[in-house]
């Protein structure tokens, strides 16, 4: 979802999850294709204030699979949470938040909230993350 004033082409969708609230959101026109490409190589997890509602709400707008992706229940310190979830796997976080998300072990892709996923070059990101070494946390942890 983008914040005005948009810096890319968008499509508009009325979204909700199980009723109770609704909102008209704008997503980059390119987002479904980019997410589809990323999903081929990544296990995608949500790290959003929308929590378990995010997938349901945005399923149609983004062309997501029926079975919801997992979500991590954090809103601050997202990179830390993703790193913990990823364990020894390489990871990337696409972040449009206003706060910084410092990270030591993975890639934080900062995007402009007016462009969102549209700014992510999926092929490059896949390549970059494949290039990251698997971390050796288990072995390191067992060292004397």
């Amino acid at each position, binding site marked *: 979802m983008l*914040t005005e004033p948009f810096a890319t082409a968008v499509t508009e969708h009325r979204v909700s999850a199980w009723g109770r609230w609704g909102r008209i959101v704008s997503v980059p026109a390119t987002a479904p294709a980019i997410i589809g490409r990323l999903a081929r190589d990544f296990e995608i997890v949500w790290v959003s204030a929308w929590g378990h509602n995010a997938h349901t709400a945005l399923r149609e707008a983004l062309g997501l699979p029926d079975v919801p992706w997992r979500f991590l229940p954090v809103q601050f310190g997202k990179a830390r949470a993703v790193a913990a979830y990823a364990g020894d796997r390489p990871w990337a976080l696409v972040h449009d938040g206003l706060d910084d998300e410092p990270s030591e072990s993975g890639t934080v892709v900062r995007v402009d909230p007016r462009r969102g996923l549209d700014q992510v070059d999926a092929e490059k990101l896949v390549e970059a993350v494949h290039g990251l070494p698997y971390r050796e946390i288990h072995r390191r942890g067992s060292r004397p």
Partner: protein
Amino acid sequence: MIHDQQAAVDVGTAYGFTPGSPLEQIARVGPGTPMGEVLRRYWQPVALTDKVTQTPQRVRVLGEDLLLFRDGTGRPGLLYPRCCHRGASLYYGGVEENGIRCCYHGWVFDVEGRCLEQPCEPELGLHRDRVRQPWYPVTERYGLVWAYMGPPERKPVLPRYDVFEELGPGQAVHADDSGFSGGGPAELDFNWVSHWENVMDPFHVPILHARFSGNQFVPEMAIMPEVSFSYLDHGIRSESTRTLPDGRTLRRVTEAVFPNLRVVADPRLSLGACDVLGWVVPVDDENFKIFTLFRSADPDRLSQMRTAFGGKRWAELNDEEHRRMPGDYEAQSSQGRISLHTDDHLTTTDQGVTMLRRMMARVARQVADGGDPPGLVFDEKDELVCVRGGNYIEPLTDDSAEATP
């Protein structure tokens, strides 16, 4: 089998829990802080007109200690209190026809800080025009004294509001500084954002104000609404839809208008555009006031609208009654002097809050980068602001509700 062992152990206990922190960029209001600079770009109410007299009074606004008075000709003045001669407080000064005289060596300053007299100096100070007591522009409208505390070259026009310009028979605009809508004392002793965010929290209404504490407004408010949220150019809107027992649909439109204007539809559900507007004005990081304007033929209308706690007023309740029938004040003040925002677990029904925080941070960044915040009026021909919040039975036809994220 490490996993099995772990599953048997209690998790999530408070042992070792370290509290989070406030979102500083939206909570702080002092000079030079991101949101403080946003707030300073707009005219802010600082006092009721009636209360500004020839007796100088100390006021604290946006973390700044200032002195407010009215000179002998009736002009209000808002000065930095420390006399620019050698620092005695003008609080002990005496108001005269054209300004205020410092008690120490008698320098006189007008409401714009010009030094009119230095009585110990030859010819009352040959160079007195070289000093200026720091001052802020003030003006009066609708029974309030408004101050502009931002950069002088960006001073906007003080807006007018359609609901206060078009009065019905016998109606007048009244001003109030008793903390209306705060649900507690006149000066509220916690960070203004906790109250400001509450404006975009329509889901607390059926819980706190109805199911939990007994109907504090009207029984219809216990109905859980369907809410749609939207970004506007000038703030955030929530539109709560309730199906009334008689089958009609009620739309309650509330707006948080930048940077601190509450346009909250009457919680007692009187119909039509909202004619009670409230400015949430930070005293400092840990205190704020609410200045409310309302249109009515009855000057007591507002006090009749205040939250009822089992038939009593807030100030009449004892501790046990506060505990049993908490209202906005208890809920919001208990979030902390400044809330620990990073400990929040926001959900999709909190998205009005999320949107507001996001917009505040975005606007703060915009202002820090030299831009203007939204909703400023620089041309008098655009000074009239239309209020869109209110309670409506008919579907809202509205051209200003943008369909944005």
